[in-house]
Structure formats: structure tokens, C-alpha cells
């Protein structure tokens, strides 16, 4: 049996979504971003929304997200993606408008825009990648950095007296009247990826049906920033991150 014999449509078990192009990703080995990108591409394709989607990129590791998914993108200034998305969705009511933001972008510099867009009940989806560190700039402390966790700007570990407490902005979002669906997921194993996909899909469906604002946090790894191998990073995340950032649907007004 030759390779060509094997590559037949009936033998296909998995394929890359059409919206995902062949550009080599800049993400580090073990990073969660690539998986989430793929999920988004799959869902947009399944929902047949490629001509109806506006994606808003952050400043941070996902600053180049627009290189990998062949949809229309707007690269927002640091933290401002929810404001950019607000206008897009209000001006194009039948579009899927989503932002894709990291913890520094969403929970720190853009905390104001995030909370107000969610609280206004903008019919958008915010995908929130939380790896508890500033990856792009080289591993500095993030608003979500856990107590005791070491980063380049808290090299002896995060302590409340010096650095304040980690901000659980997703829990905060559940208390906002404008949010319809708030979920926290991860993509560190197959089961988690499946759950994350269904959460993002539910958020996108809500956005298209004009139901509230939707926030899906993906608790993620940053093996480079955490100075661990990809496998160690996954283990560390399960052991440490999930305790503070507990997985699951935190709010669903439809239930």
C-alpha cells in the first residue's frame, strides 16, 4: 500500500479547517493558542459564518492571530478589543463579532473596556486566554499571576503586600447583568478540548442570536514563560491553576 492509496477521502479521520491557512505559527511548543485558534476556525466553518465574521485581535502573544485564520480581522490597541468589537457588532448586527485576548490585555490594561462591554450586554463573544503571565514581552507578572508564582517582575514570587492579588475577572463577569454565558475551560487534553469547543460554540451561537455578552476563559499554559517543558506545564497548570481558576460553566442564563 502506497501513501497515495492511504490518502483517500474515505480514510479521512481529521482535517485542518479550511479557514486555517498554512502560515507557520509563531507560538512556542506547548502553547495553548494554536489549539484555540483551530477550535475557532472549526466552529466558524461549522456555523457557516466566514462571510459574517469580524475577529478582533489583542496586543500580546495572539497579536498575530490574524495571520492564521482567513477571516476579516481588526488588530486593536492594547486592551481595547471589547470597545472595537462593540462598535462592529452594533453597526453590523448580523455579524459574528468576537475578541481574542490574553490576561494582560483583557484583565489589566483593558479591564475597563472588558467590564463595560460585558455589562452593556454587547452581543459579542470574548475569548480570554489566561496563562497567568505576560508571554509576548518575556514573562512578566500578569493580573492573573497566582500568589507565590515567580515571573520576571516578581522573581521572588507574587506576594500580596507588593503585588496585590490575582484578579479573577471571569468570576467577576458572572455578576454583571449583561453577561449571558460565562465559562472557564482548558485545552490540555482531548476531553478538555471538546468541552472548550462546545463552550465557544455556545458563546458564538448566543452572539448570533443576540443573547447577551459571552465570555469564555481558556486556562492556558505558557511553557516558555513558566520555564517548563510542555508536559510539565500541563501538569503544573492542573495542579496549581485549576484550584484558583476552576473549570466549568460559571453562568448560563438559558439554564
Amino acid at each position, binding site marked *: 500500500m502506497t501513501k497515495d492509496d492511504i490518502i483517500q477521502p474515505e480514510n479521512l479521520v481529521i482535517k485542518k479547517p479550511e479557514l486555517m491557512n498554512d502560515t507557520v505559527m509563531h507560538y512556542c511548543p506547548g502553547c495553548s493558542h494554536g489549539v484555540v485558534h483551530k477550535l475557532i476556525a472549526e466552529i466558524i466553518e461549522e456555523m457557516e459564518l466566514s462571510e*459574517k*465574521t469580524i475577529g478582533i485581535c489583542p496586543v500580546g502573544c495572539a497579536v498575530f492571530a490574524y495571520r492564521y485564520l482567513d477571516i*476579516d*480581522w*481588526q488588530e486593536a490597541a492594547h486592551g481595547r478589543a471589547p470597545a472595537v468589537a462593540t462598535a*462592529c457588532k452594533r453597526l*453590523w448586527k448580523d455579524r459574528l463579532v468576537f475578541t481574542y485576548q490574553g490576561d494582560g490585555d483583557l484583565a489589566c490594561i483593558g479591564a475597563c473596556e472588558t467590564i463595560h462591554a460585558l455589562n452593556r450586554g454587547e452581543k459579542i463573544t470574548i475569548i480570554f486566554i489566561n496563562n497567568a503571565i505576560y508571554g509576548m514581552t518575556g514573562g512578566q507578572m500578569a493580573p492573573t499571576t497566582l500568589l507565590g508564582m515567580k515571573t520576571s517582575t516578581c522573581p521572588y514570587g507574587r506576594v500580596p503586600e507588593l503585588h496585590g492579588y490575582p484578579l479573577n475577572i471571569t468570576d467577576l463577569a458572572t455578576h454583571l447583568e449583561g453577561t449571558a454565558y460565562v465559562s472557564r475551560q482548558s485545552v490540555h487534553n482531548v476531553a478538555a478540548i471538546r468541552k472548550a469547543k462546545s463552550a465557544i460554540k455556545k458563546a458564538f451561537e448566543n452572539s448570533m442570536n443576540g443573547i447577551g455578552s459571552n465570555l469564555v476563559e481558556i486556562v492556558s499554559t505558557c511553557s516558555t514563560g513558566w520555564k517548563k517543558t510542555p508536559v510539565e506545564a500541563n501538569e503544573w497548570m492542573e495542579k496549581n491553576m485549576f484550584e484558583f481558576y476552576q473549570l466549568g460553566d460559571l453562568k448560563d442564563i438559558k439554564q
Partner: protein
Amino acid sequence: MENNRECFLMKGNEAIAHAAVRCGCDGYFGYPITPQSEVLETLSQLKPWETTGMVVLQAESEVAAINMLYGGGASGKRVMTSSSSPGVALMQEGISYMAAVEIPAVIVNVQRGGPGLGTIQPGQADYLQATVGGGNGDYNTIVLAPASVQDMADYVDIAFQLAFKYRNPTFILSDGVIGQMMEQVYLPPFKPRRTEEEIGTECPWAANGYHLTQRKPNIFSSLEMDPKTMEQRNTRLQQKYALMSKNEQRATTFLCDDAEYLYVAFGSVSRCAEEAVVVLRNRGHKVGLLRPISLWPFPKDCLNKILPTVKEILVCEMNAGQMINDVKLSINCQRPVYHYGRTGGVVPTPDELIEAMIALIKQ
């Protein structure tokens, strides 16, 4: 009725709001700040979302408002905001981003005196901020300076046309006098908002998903890792600015044909200067007024055209001396150029301008 236009008595800020609805604006995003809050208030009263479908949203900050313009403009819609000096200072980041990726939008600055919180009284001290970019990086925005409530009504549509013609943010640089005073105004006729197909045709560059399967994705990003590519992008922007600079100079002149002494003033101060010219002409002095309408590009061609008869120039502004630099540069310092300015919210009277000019003539 003048040319079938309806006549009203209203504030400049109200005229801006009415004109926005009438000229087919798709969205207004703003944050309250004195002395321009009537723009958002008037729009909220007019409820254009029930008539033209225009979106009106009170943003959580000026920072959010300008980034809403980024999103709306990049998706091909006609979007605008208004604010006053401290608020516009906050918007500078967003304006730089918009200029970098060539997003059209209209920004109204009803200036107040500064710096800092300053005062809620009128000022013109944001001239430099508006005309030399204002945010980070090399960029320019067209800046139109209204001098009447009528101008406020008329410039909205002109600003939108320029913004889309050059794909560039465009400023209406007003001041607290023009924003707050009431005058007779003819409002423009209603123009329908563009349909999705019309936006698709006019703005094939827009990121809105329209006909994506038949084209490459439209991506707005000012980030570029390769310096040479970034420089090429900047060079292309500079070429566009050169074109704008050549084509879009606007000014009006008043009794300049034989003027030996010239006022140069914009916005509300040009109204005082106009009265000063009339008084001084009646006293036998050959005085004229150049009122730049476009502050960027500065109307240097117009200034140089009237320059031959001019002996001396008096630049009058509600700031400590900002436009005076453009006047000197435009004429390459071929004439003595003097400045009369009031700051901090103090509006000069025509008498002050007359006195300042008499002092110059008697020198």
C-alpha cells in the same frame, strides 16, 4: 428656506448632532465632557436609531469611544465622536492607530482652555496637537476649523467625505464659543445611510466579512516586525499626506486685496478679527483677514497669494502662540509675524485685536 434647507436657531454642538443624522452617519460614540455634551444629548433626544438607523452610544471613556471609531471605521461605516480637549488627549492613542491603518472617521474637538483639566471656557490650545499628529509616530489628520454654527452643520459632511476620500481620520477643531453659542443655521438635507452593498462597493478594504469567499481577508494591523516594510508603509502614508496637503488647503479671505496689515485667525477668534478689520478699515487702515479653514493642511498657497501687499502679520489665537509657527513657515519668514493670544479660557474682544493691530501699525 435657503436651497430647500430648513433654518433653525441652535447651538453649534446641536448643529453637529443634527448634521450627523442628516448626512448619513452610521454611528456616534462619545463620552460627556463640557463644553460639548450637547452633541450626545441632542443625538439621544433625536433617537436616530428609530429613523435613519444610526447607532448612538455613550461610551465608558474617551479611550473606549475612539476605539469604537476604530472598529466602526475599519468595518466601512461612517462613524464619529466628539469631545473636548482633555478627552481628545485621551483619544490620541486610538487616532494614531487609525491613521496608521488608514481608518476613516470624524473627530470633533470643542476645545477648552488647558493644560490639564484647565477650564471649561473656550480655548484653541489644541492646535498643535491636532495639526502635527498628536499621538505617537509620523502621521497627519485633516483639520477643519469652523467659525460659526453654520460651519458646524456644514463641516460634518465635508469631514466625512475627506475621511473616506483619503481613508484618514479627520478633525473638526472647534472651540467652546462655537459649540455653545446659538446662531441661525440652515441644516443640510437628509441623505440616506449607505446599504451593505454600497459599503461593499465603496469600501472593498473594510473588515466586515462582506463577500469574504470572493476576496482575500481584510486585515487591519499597524504592527510590522520588518523595519524596511514598516518604512515602506510610512513612505506610502507620507505620499498620501503630501497629496492631501496639496489638494485640501482651505481658507477664506476678508478684504485682503490691498491689505498691508493682515490678521490671521481661525475659529471663533476669526469672528472677532473680522469685526476688527471692519473697524480699522473705517478708520482708513488697509487691514485684511486670512481665516484658515483647514489648519492642516495649512493654507499656505492662499497666504502666499495675498502676501505681496502685506507688510506685517498679526496672528491672533486663544493660545500662547501655536498657529504662528505655520504662518512663519508658510511664508518662509518673509514678513514680520507677531502674535496676540489669550489663554486659559479668556476670549479676546475685537477691541483687544484692534488695539494690538494699531500698536503694530504705529511701530
